[in-house]
């Protein structure tokens, strides 16, 4: 009896592996081979000689990368933008969630949620068009209508370096705040209604209920979401930083992040060595950050840890 059961189990294992096989194959190709392929960052790569023929060069690519200003600029930009997104983004998303929750039962509440979520569904290409309709130097709404009405001269936004940290944060919020609010709304919906009832009987105002009940009880969700975002601070949204500034070279000092640098190095300058070194730098530091963030999440709240 045990023998036939064992035989059945191994047949079962094989069949299940067989079902998973196409997916496993895809992940090996799309994800695992490139992980192994990061070794090209240690080679002086040329397309003519190929991956195997190109000679090893030790840490030279990394040396060159960190000798330039680029490494500092892209690290600074990536980190500072993410920091701004985490801080401002969390505040705005939580405010959206509280407001939307209050109107949740009403038809207009549903309408507002649809409106605020909608920008998240648009591509970065279309988003860049929308920003262009506002900021284009000759036909943009801001120059022609707003600044004109104020009697001011138009600004050439796509060369105005210092404006872009503000523009990109606003675009980020426009696109993502409504989406991130969904998770906080779910958190608020999970709070026990009786706590609010008790507070009402004690005469607590709405504002008091928010500061004394909603926010403290939402704290674990906010912490988890923030830690997960901290795990991703070495990555940036390629579309936001590539499409929205229209790939304008004069803006690189304030719009270039690790992801756009890797792309431009590889495709526009053909500098595979530098580009792959920046990529490996991102992968390794990114990996360490995810592990640390998850380690902290697991200590605070094992339920929400990724592993």
């Amino acid at each position: 009896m045990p023998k036939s059961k064992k035989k059945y189990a191994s047949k079962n294992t094989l069949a299940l592996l067989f079902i998973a096989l196409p997916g496993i194959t895809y992940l090996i190709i799309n994800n695992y081979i490139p992980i192994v392929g990061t070794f090209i960052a240690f080679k002086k790569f040329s397309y003519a000689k190929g991956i195997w023929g190109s000679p090893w060069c030790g840490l030279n690519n990394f040396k060159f990368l960190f000798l330039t200003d680029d490494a500092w600029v892209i690290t600074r930009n990536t980190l500072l933008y993410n920091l701004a997104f985490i801080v401002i983004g969390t505040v705005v998303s939580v405010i959206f969630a509280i407001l939307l929750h209050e109107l949740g039962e009403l038809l207009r509440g549903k309408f507002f949620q649809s409106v605020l979520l909608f920008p998240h569904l648009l591509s970065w290409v279309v988003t860049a068009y929308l920003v262009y309709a506002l900021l284009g130097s000759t036909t943009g709404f801001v120059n022609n209508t707003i600044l004109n009405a104020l009697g001011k001269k138009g600004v050439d936004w796509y060369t105005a370096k210092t404006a872009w940290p503000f523009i990109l944060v606003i675009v980020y919020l426009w696109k993502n705040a409504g989406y991130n609010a969904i998770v906080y709304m779910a958190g608020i919906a999970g709070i026990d209604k009786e706590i609010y009832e008790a507070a009402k009987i004690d005469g607590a105002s709405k504002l008091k209920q928010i500061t004394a009940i909603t926010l403290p009880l939402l704290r674990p969700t906010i912490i988890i979401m923030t830690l997960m975002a901290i795990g991703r601070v070495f990555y940036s949204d390629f579309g936001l930083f590539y499409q929205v500034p229209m790939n304008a070279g004069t803006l690189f000092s304030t719009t270039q992040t690790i992801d756009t640098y890797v792309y431009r190095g590889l495709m526009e300058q053909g500098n595979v060595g530098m580009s792959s070194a920046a990529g490996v730098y991102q992968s390794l530091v990114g990996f360490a950050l995810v592990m640390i963030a998850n380690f902290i999440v697991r200590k605070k709240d094992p339920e929400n840890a990724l592993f």
Partner: protein
Amino acid sequence: MKKTVSDEKRFIAIATVILVVISIVALFPMILLVVASFTDENELITNGYQILPKKLSLEAYTYMVKQAATIVRSYLVTIGTTVVGTGLSVLLTTSIAYPMARKTFKYRNALSFFVYFTMLFNGGLVPQYIMWTTFFHIKDTYAALIFPNLLMTAFNIFLVRNYYSNSLPEALYEAAQLDGASEIGIFTKIVFPLSKPVVATIGLFTGLSYWNSWTNALYYVQDPKYFGIQNLLMRIMKNIEYLRSGASELAAEGQAVSLPGNSIRMALAFVGILPIIIIYPMLQKYFIKGVVVGAVKG
């Protein structure tokens, strides 16, 4: 007691006002884009994009209809890659998630880790680019639009795995096995047909990412015949004259129309997001459900 009620009403009123303002701000660029697409080209040149233009015109749309070849082609490329990519993605994602949800499967944890690790460590663009172009030679093929990156995400796989482990009881599998069903039979005849809600969710996520995808063509495509709608938009932002290339024969016959560049850009962007606007009300529910479930436990 009366005081609390009025306090609550006042709060709702204030919340409504704030949300009205935020919604107007959120929708403003969209409205500007749609109005601009219906604005007279000369009006755009003198006064720029406006909410209340002095002169409206349909010339952008009539131009698009007349010179439709390039636009229709890119639209079909986008529709084709979205349908094929989403279909393949659903098959691959559900079939790898199913064994991960089976408690009796010996390599259950190993497989979960195998999928999970792809979220932790990313090889990056350079090795990926070299692999796809030198091993698989996908440059300038439809495969380039479908295979790299978009086909499977760990997020979707875990979404389906969690759905299976939470809503399909172990007893179901035992009963099916007693009836002599094979594992493959259980998956294809019992589990997959029960997956409708989660397939709707991941199908929506994936379909949207294919519809909005522009990076794969940016990396792997040079021949414009493989451009979907997003890459056509990218191209005409840089050079509106590109649209004429699809109409070269007409131009040769001296029928070339003046190109209403400023309005046609916006008209084309509007046409690109129209399908999303249309299906959005139907699919919003699944979308929100997916985000909540996925975020709570990835």
